[in-house]
């Protein structure tokens, strides 16, 4: 497995085209794997290509890719990077590193900082005789609950805050009801309501935009099941993995995790 980082040059028209449509960016990411053909059908629970955009500031937009093979992002550098700087072999325009050593060293009890951009959804019906439909979670409380629901299967446990850092001591409301809003080392931010066309220019009558709600989770976790976490990190979490969702990355904790 490889972890790749590419900084998007937001001043370029090509970057704006890619950033405005997850569909276009997904196509560009998938084109960076020369051995991966669109006609290939991958194994349903094998490692896959995952990507994520980190909008840290207006002009600091990072594209992270986790993939089974090493990508070649030359076309992205040409369209949305710094091609002149990339002629120097020291700065090829993107960084790619083997991810397997980190995955192999995951052990029970390790603590990490994590970031995950996901598409939290559930399936609901409004009336009894209606089919259930996939519906986005819109409030941070529900979005957090969505992630907390998946932590055990994902092989990690989100750390709880010490009482001194909580606004609600004991993690309960004043009526002593459990409330996760302030209990965990977890924040939800950067909600994006995306709506984009899946195909461009053809058959206007069939054009219905894809709409997605994505949020970015930041927090701290403890590894509870290394195998399950390895699967989470390489196969993604949740829906809309083709549209920049589901990629979780780990970083060492500031205090030396």
């Amino acid at each position, binding site marked *: 497995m490889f*972890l790749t*980082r590419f900084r998007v040059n937001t001043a370029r028209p090509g970057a704006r085209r890619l950033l405005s449509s997850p569909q276009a960016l997904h196509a560009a990411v998938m084109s960076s794997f020369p051995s991966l053909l669109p006609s290939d059908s991958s194994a349903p629970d094998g490692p896959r290509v995952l990507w994520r955009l980190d*909008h840290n500031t207006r002009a600091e937009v990072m594209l992270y890719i986790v993939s089974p093979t090493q990508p070649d992002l030359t076309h992205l550098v040409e369209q949305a990077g710094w091609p002149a700087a990339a002629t120097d072999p020291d700065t090829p325009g993107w960084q790619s590193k083997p991810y397997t*050593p*980190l995955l192999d*060293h995951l052990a029970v009890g390790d603590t990490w900082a994590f970031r995950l951009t996901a598409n939290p959804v559930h399936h609901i019906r409004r009336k009894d005789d209606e089919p259930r439909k996939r519906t986005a979670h819109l409030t941070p409380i529900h979005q957090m609950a969505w992630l907390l629901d998946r932590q055990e299967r994902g092989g990690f446990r989100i750390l709880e805050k010490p009482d001194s850092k909580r606004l609600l001591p004991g993690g309960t409301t004043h009526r002593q009801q459990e409330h996760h809003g302030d209990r965990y080392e977890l924040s939800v931010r*950067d909600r994006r309501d995306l709506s984009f066309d899946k195909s461009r220019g053809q058959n206007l009558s069939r054009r219905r935009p894809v709409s997605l709600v994505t949020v970015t989770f*930041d927090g701290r976790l403890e590894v509870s099941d290394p195998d399950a976490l390895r699967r989470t990190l390489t196969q993604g979490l949740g829906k809309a993995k083709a549209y920049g969702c589901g990629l979780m990355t*780990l970083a060492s904790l500031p205090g030396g995790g």
Partner: protein
Amino acid sequence: MSVLTLRLAGPLQSWGASARFTRRTTESAPTKSGVIGMLAAAAGIERGDDTELARLGALRYGVRIDQPGSRVRDFQTAHHPVTGKSMPLSERFYLADAVFVAALEGDRALLTELHAALRAPVYAPYLGRRSCPPALPIELGLHDGTTPLRQVLQDEPWQAAPWYRRQRRRDATVSLAVLREADEHEDHADVLRDQPLSFAADHRRHALRSIIGDTVEVPNPAAVPTRSAPRHDPFDALEEESARCS
């Protein structure tokens, strides 16, 4: 030595130090003579009583500019109410929407007396001119003990109006200008003729006073933390990993 602090806030203020005749200017901060005059009025000291005034004039004075306000020019025409003859054209300058914290350092008994006088004034206090009433209670507090004037002006919370604080919400602290009386050993002081000697109606007299300009950093209670993304670098974990392997 104690310190008495005052909050001077109002829609209009006017603090003249060198105004004469029909052009009545204002300094950008309250003058010592203006503030001492206000305290003397609150304590009920009559205009000709120079010995009582000398006790007040001996206090050390400092002022912090919490909200500078803007200068307003009032071009005034008036006619005599009886004869109908026109009065001289005059220009009056005011500070609009300004807030200051003034501090007086000196004898504890005198300051306690003045503090009580501000709560039950003999003559109502005003901000430099009779037409400029204060918008908020003037007295802030009496600081007993050894805290020097500069420290008191540093510790006093920011008194600016909420709308003004919100404009500075990106700053965790604000730096405020302080104009205080110079110590003996300090040179490079400015001088201003606002040390009151006499408020006698027929002949007011002021002496020169030396002033040191300074700034203090005060926390901003309206500051909101910047909502930038937390730092997250997945590559630092990889580097640590490779360092551990090698």
